[in-house]
């Protein structure tokens, strides 16, 4: 009689049953992201809040609680209010300019022309180039002695050397320079956002508008722009948050000069907290960004939710 071997049933590990449960697996998979946010964003933020309420300095690393004394001292300093104003001008000025350039760039890149793909790839370069490298290149363009912009204008007979603008020596021009550089870095991102938005608008909507007699401006500002506003707003949130917290351009180009005309919150916080070793005051200066950014982000997200179609 033939004996038929019975298949051996391997005991299934208990662990596998646990992983088969959807809610457990979801938790395990999402845990790294939550841990990342808690450890690398949440914890430093709480630490910064505590620093700002303490007397912590590198000279005397004490955790002594001082309440809101650091904030009071900062607000009493008139220079700080200038810094706050500069930060707003820098942020919103560069975002506005970046958006305008981005919109024009997107329209140009939507038109068919030979080499469009190469131009589309090249236009991303300002966004991809390291900020240090880009700022140094701009530094030479705005240099007091060897400015290529001034040199060109002098060579073209538009200006004499005495009339040439002192880009980084005049308070208003210096602010304009950092705004231009940041807008130059931001506009490729704005182009991508606009291109993505415009190409997502259904062609039949545009065709219908055209048939109804809508011209270029009406199509763009009454049909396309309202439809892509949510995606533009998301891009703008990124731009505002990154610019408001940025210190690299100012640090590399002007060091807050001339006479504090380009000092922004990120730079002032770095100089006070890290370079001068007053960590508590540095943290307090930096935390002034938090309520502003919170209000801007909440406002824009609410706006996006209302505009969603």
């Amino acid at each position, binding site marked *: 009689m033939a004996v038929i071997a019975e298949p051996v049933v391997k005991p299934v590990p208990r662990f596998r049953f646990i*992983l088969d449960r959807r809610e457990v697996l979801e938790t395990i998979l999402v845990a790294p992201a939550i841990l990342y946010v808690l450890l690398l964003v949440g914890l430093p933020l709480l630490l910064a809040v505590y620093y700002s309420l303490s007397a912590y300095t590198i*000279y005397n690393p004490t955790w002594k609680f001082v309440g809101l004394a650091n904030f009071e001292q900062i607000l009493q300093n008139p220079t700080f209010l200038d810094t706050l104003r500069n930060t707003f001008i820098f942020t919103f000025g560069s975002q506005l300019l970046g958006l305008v350039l981005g919109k024009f760039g997107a329209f140009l890149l939507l038109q068919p022309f030979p080499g469009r793909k190469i131009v589309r790839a090249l236009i991303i370069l300002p966004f991809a180039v390291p900020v240090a490298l880009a700022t140094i290149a701009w530094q030479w363009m705005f240099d*007091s002695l060897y400015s290529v912009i001034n040199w060109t204008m002098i060579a073209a007979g538009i200006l004499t050397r005495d009339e040439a603008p002192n880009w980084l020596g005049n308070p208003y021009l210096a602010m304009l320079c950092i705004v231009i550089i940041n807008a130059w870095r931001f506009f490729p991102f704005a182009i991508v956002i606009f291109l993505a938005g415009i190409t997502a608008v259904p062609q039949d909507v545009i065709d219908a508008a055209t048939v109804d007699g809508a011209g270029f401006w009406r199509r763009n500002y009454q049909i396309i722009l309202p439809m892509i506003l949510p995606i533009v707003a998301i891009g703008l949130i990124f731009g505002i948050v990154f610019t408001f917290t940025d210190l690299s351009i100012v640090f590399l180009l002007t060091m807050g000069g001339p006479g504090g005309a380009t000092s922004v919150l990120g730079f002032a916080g770095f100089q006070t907290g890290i*370079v*001068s*070793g*007053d960590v508590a005051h540095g943290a307090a200066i930096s935390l002034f960004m938090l309520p502003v950014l919170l209000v801007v982000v909440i406002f824009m997200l609410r706006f996006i939710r209302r505009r969603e179609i």
Partner: protein
Amino acid sequence: MSTGKYLRVTRRRFLTQTGLTLAAASAPSLATPFISRALADTKSLSIVQWSHFVPEYDKWFDQFAKDWGTKNNIDVSVDHIPVANVAARAAAEASAQSGHDLFGWNGAGGAHLYRKFLVDVTTLVEATEKKYGKVSTIGRQIGYNQDNKTWSAFPDFYINFPAMYRKSMWDEIGMKPDTWDDVRIGGAKLKAKGHPVGISLGHSNDPNTTWRGLLWSFGGALQDADGKNVVLNSKETVEAVKYVAALYKEAMTSEVLSWDDSSNNRYLVSGIGSMIVNPISAYRTFQKANKKGADDTFVMAPPKGPVRQIMGGASEFYGIWKFAKNREGAIEFLKYYADHWPEAFKASEGYNNPCFANLVPKPMPILSNDPTSTPADKLAVLQNSEQWSASPGYPGPSWPAVDEAYNDFIICDMMAKAASGQMSAEDSVKWAHGQSEAIFTKWHGKT
């Protein structure tokens, strides 16, 4: 026959294989503590310092440190970082309680700010003083703690800020910039000829140093000798600020408002500038770019003010972290380095000036007889620069409040605001005094 059954990625298969991959990838890091312990038996010494303005010095130092390591069976590594990154690197290392063994600071800040993190090097400094003479005033202002009479850093060298002027241009108007008044009067004449004076009014180390020197030469100062009180709002300071406003209008170019530390070097090399105040790196750069122009450039002690002849200086000093892995090695290296300091002096082409009186006996090599200069004794005046050099805290000590006033460019802005007409001299001084007093009050509560 392939059924595709085994190729399908199931959830279980994904998790098993991902888990195994992660375990394999993390195996080396799990073993790291054991490997590190084994490596710790090999002695090492790590040094970090700024990238010197004279690149040849860095080459010499790296080889010197490596040779010392070979002799003592120690693996030495030297990292050079941009001068602007020194403060941030120090803060990062102190916060992490980890980093290099030996930390080289440059300019303001450092020794006194980080004293709780640094090894007391009093014995080392005193032993070096016995061997090579007293530490100069500028060396003492940085590393010495007046309150408990200890040293928290080893003074390496200081950088002086002499005046450099184009002799042919000044000869043409029959003057020499001996005093600040001469600079203003002669500078105005030379500006009319297309050769303005160039002293930065921007935000960087050079103007921070130069304008402090001018302020002291007029009898003004940021703080008193004890470092307790801000004394900026004085008649002397107002006079100094009025002078700078006049100098800017009459003898300088508006470009100076945007200059960084290298701008005046370029200005001199361009052939436009008739005078600058800068370490001799500007002269060395000029020598490499245009020998004829450099030969016409003369180096002199800073111009005299109504009260004294003095100029700011920048100090370089070494601190040993308390958390350093090789403290003994760091101390031994500094002893050896001090014994060979004249070599460092030569390698820096006379840029590094000794903080100990007899470290480089006079006549000093290079400065007393520089074969690259015409005449060869052109730099001889720099041998006595310790007599007219002072650190930012003068006449008091350097301490965190002085550093913050320095890092906030308060003295530069006080001069610039008056020069550019944003404020009157009196208002500008009041503004600077208020800013400084807020900083001093804050730090007095914390130190």
